[in-house]
């Protein structure tokens, strides 16, 4: 079993709340290969974030199994082999950029080992070499997310989980960060799972797109993205790109469109 190979087998998740049970995820089956970049796309609130959080051991499935390299995510989390970037960068406001990136190293202590990345290299990788001592409030939203990405990579994890990391940013910044993230991913060579609700982002970044239904989340389609790597900004204007976007959009919107036509989904 390759490290970084992810499998979800019959995964379901139901939340119980005082106002009743909410079925967030319903029988999701898929596998992700080592080193692959995969996108989960779906309407807001459909449960795709829940799937991602199960990969990160932040939620537990109520049925089914999640494995990463054959082990449950909990094991990898305890070995700190999972990196996660949240929609809110969540930098500690009293720490500089450098200190924020160093946080996982401090927590891991001695067990960080030699596989930890050098912080200066990471700063260069995310393009923040000029700002090692800046404080979060001095940084723009895009820069804060770069710090968050660097922090997620500092312990050299096997898996990188991204939960709509650029969702709070404007489109232009988002585009630039997408390109930069691809460069970083290519350099680091890690299995990545991105949750997004932007079609263009999903097509631009990933090798495969899992299209998810409205809640409860099910995988309704898998769209392979066979654009050549390394991806360039120019590709976003190519007919092949638009074609894949259209195909993904069709899969994504079909539940809504058939409802609008009055037919059963």
């Amino acid at each position: 079993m390759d490290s970084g190979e992810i499998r979800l087998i019959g995964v379901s998740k139901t939340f119980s709340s005082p106002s009743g049970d909410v079925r967030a995820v319903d029988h999701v089956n898929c596998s992700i290969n080592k080193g692959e970049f995969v996108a989960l796309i779906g309407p807001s609130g459909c449960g795709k974030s829940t799937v991602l959080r199960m990969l990160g051991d932040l939620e537990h499935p109520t049925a089914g199994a999640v494995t990463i390299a054959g082990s449950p995510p909990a094991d990898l989390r305890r070995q700190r082999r999972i990196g996660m970037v949240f929609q809110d960068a969540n930098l500690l406001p009293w720490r500089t950029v450098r200190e924020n990136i160093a946080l996982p190293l401090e927590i891991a202590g001695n067990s960080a080992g030699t596989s930890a990345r050098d912080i200066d290299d990471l700063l260069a990788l995310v393009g923040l070499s000029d700002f090692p001592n800046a404080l979060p409030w001095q940084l723009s939203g895009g820069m804060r997310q770069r710090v968050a990405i660097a922090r997620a990579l500092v312990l050299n994890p096997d898996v990188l989980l991204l939960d709509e990391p650029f969702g709070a940013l404007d489109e232009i910044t988002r585009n630039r960060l997408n390109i930069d993230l691809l460069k970083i991913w290519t350099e680091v060579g890690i299995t990545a799972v991105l949750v997004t609700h932007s079609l263009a982002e999903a097509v631009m970044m990933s090798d495969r797109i899992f299209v998810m239904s409205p809640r409860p989340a099910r995988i309704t389609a898998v769209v392979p993205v066979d654009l050549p790597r390394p991806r360039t900004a120019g590709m976003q204007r190519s007919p092949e790109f638009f074609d894949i976007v259209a195909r993904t959009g069709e899969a994504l919107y079909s539940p809504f469109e058939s409802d609008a036509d009055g037919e059963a989904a």
Partner: protein
Amino acid sequence: MAAIAINPKTSGRLRSLTAVLLVLAVWELAARLFAPGPTPIIPPPTILVTYVADHLGLLAVVVRPTLIEAVSGFCIGAAFSIVMAAIFVRYRGVEAALSNTLVLIHSLPMLAIIPLLVIWFGIGYTPKIVVAALATFFPVLNGALRGLRSADRSTLELMHLLNATGMQTLLKVRIPSSLPYIFAGLKIAAPQAVLGATVAEWIGSREGLGSQILMALLNYDVPLLWACMVLCAVMAALGFCIIVAIEYLVIGRRAEPLKAED
């Protein structure tokens, strides 16, 4: 030649300062005009200042016990409340169990507690220190509770993801994020500690500002009364300023500049 631009914060402070000076000036004039004579009820500020300067030695002796009581009570109360807040955050059961008791203690009027404390501990420093500690305890507890709970859910998830221990989360996330709130509580508590110690001296004490105020009142010694009042206010303000200074040293420029609130 460029005009000097005063930034809004400074101009606001300048305006307040001018207002205060204006009030002092009006006070001086009004007092001299409307209530002349050797012992007016509201003496002009200049007379007060000279009085304090003349009686510096006496006043220093009077202030010392109150200062000791307030500072000791403050430190004890603050330490106790921060520890308790940490326990409450960690063990919500303990907080639920004790919350009503704390509300009860908090709503005891000061004048009700002090006689009891004097009955138990006599008229030495102890009752005053206890009162000052109690006055400090509640604001700091509130501040510490809010502060320790102010960490984002997402940040805590990040710590979970990094498999951080409870202690690491406490030290690296909760405590630093709670500092601004704790200092806000301390800023409220410092003057309260002074006030608590002084009131405690009203009942069963022969030294300190509080008892001096009472004696001055009974003897109708107006300048002395004013001098003590002013000293009390100065001590309270000084306590506040010291906390502000400590806050700056500890948190400094790492904190995002706060919006000016009032």
